[in-house]
């Protein structure tokens, strides 16, 4: 951002007056924010938007009459829409938020650090828009997109089918220990359990290459940050020991490259 640039202009929208007061107070004391307006409904927000320019909307999801998600979809028809940051009590709405290209997704009540991270993203978005390149979307502070995602400048989360209650569940890549081939699918093993992903391992290998994952076997893609030991085998293969003591086989042809990468 140019030093001469004005601070951010934010419109916060929530039908819950106390939650709105809380985010208004936080925004007003943020160094990067110059102006904060509040609206108690999507309709009121549209009145504000018709009369002024805002860099971002901090938008609740569940509101009477016009929901936040519907307002976000409507904004996409604007020539130069403000960035949308969802601020909601609905943790399950994250995937839908990214479908409407929200810049960030915050859970109420938001911490100061998390709010500052979202504002930094808005600043980057505003600067990028001026230069013709939008900032990446994010979830809980991590850049994100749908599907299995891409690595460089892309997502740090992956959306998996939620085995409990349907819908999608977001899994942060850093929590994944390894992915195992399962036909055209991949089973990911992470701190929260095991999930099936409708993406072949070869695609995940490309998508996650820059985030510390390595293909060590035709059936295994491993997060090297979760590996604690590389154990050589007499037949020229190796075994990678993970934090949770899981043993992952390393194919003979992958051993040398893995050693180089681990400086082992």
């Amino acid at each position, binding site marked *: 951002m140019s030093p001469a640039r004005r601070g951010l202009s934010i419109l916060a929208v929530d*039908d*819950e*007056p*106390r*939650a709105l*007061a*809380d*985010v208004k*107070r936080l925004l007003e004391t943020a160094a990067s924010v110059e102006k904060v307006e509040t609206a108690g*409904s999507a309709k009121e927000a549209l009145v504000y938007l018709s009369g002024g320019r805002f860099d971002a909307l901090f938008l609740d999801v*569940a*509101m*009477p*009459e016009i929901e936040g998600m519907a307002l976000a979809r409507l904004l996409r028809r604007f020539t130069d829409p403000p960035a949308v940051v969802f601020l*909601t*009590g*609905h*943790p399950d709405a994250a995937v839908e938020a990214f479908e409407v290209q929200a810049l960030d997704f915050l*859970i*109420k*009540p938001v911490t100061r650090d998390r709010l500052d991270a979202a504002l930094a993203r808005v600043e980057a978005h505003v600067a990028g828009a001026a230069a013709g390149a939008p900032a990446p979307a994010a979830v809980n502070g991590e850049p994100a997109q749908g599907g299995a995602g891409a690595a460089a400048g892309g997502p740090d989360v992956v959306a998996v089918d939620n085995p409990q209650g349907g819908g999608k569940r977001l899994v942060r890549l850093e929590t994944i220990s390894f992915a195992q081939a399962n036909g055209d699918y991949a089973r990911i093993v992470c701190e929260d359990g095991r999930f099936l992903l409708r993406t072949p391992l070869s695609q995940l290998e490309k998508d996650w290459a820059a985030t510390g994952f390595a293909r060590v076997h035709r059936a295994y893609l491993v997060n090297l940050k979760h590996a604690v030991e590389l154990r050589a085998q007499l037949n020229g293969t190796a075994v990678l020991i993970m934090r949770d003591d899981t043993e992952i086989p390393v194919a003979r042809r992958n051993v040398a490259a893995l050693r180089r990468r681990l400086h082992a």
Partner: protein
Amino acid sequence: VPEAPPPVSAHFVNNVLAAAASYIDEEPETARDVIAELGQFLSFRLTPAESVSLARELDHVGSYVRLEQARFPGRIEASLPSSQGLPAVQVRPASVQAPLADALGRRLREIAGPCAMALRGPSGGARFELELSGPDGGAPDHLQIDAAVHA
């Protein structure tokens, strides 16, 4: 086998906490009360129990309504049955609160503006009538709530 009480909504808890946070600077005592009320609410719901007295269940309803009023100050006018003279029946936890919360939550989502809520009863053991009316003068919503009596 009695059904387990419905899980507490993360959306509800997060929004109550957001409301509590908003009171901290201007009304710290109110903030404390909201957090204490949420503690009572969660303690009730997270304590495994097949049944509770009707009086305790109505306390739980009262706790829930006060939390909603903290989220929406001035928007919910509530009338609840007295806890005196209630029949000595045991009911499944949240068997009054959960359907009441569904109905009130739907009303608040669908219609902007104030909402008057009256829970009347019990009659016939543990049967309640819920009435929800809005500012438009239209016909109020009525819902019959039969608390699941534990034999």
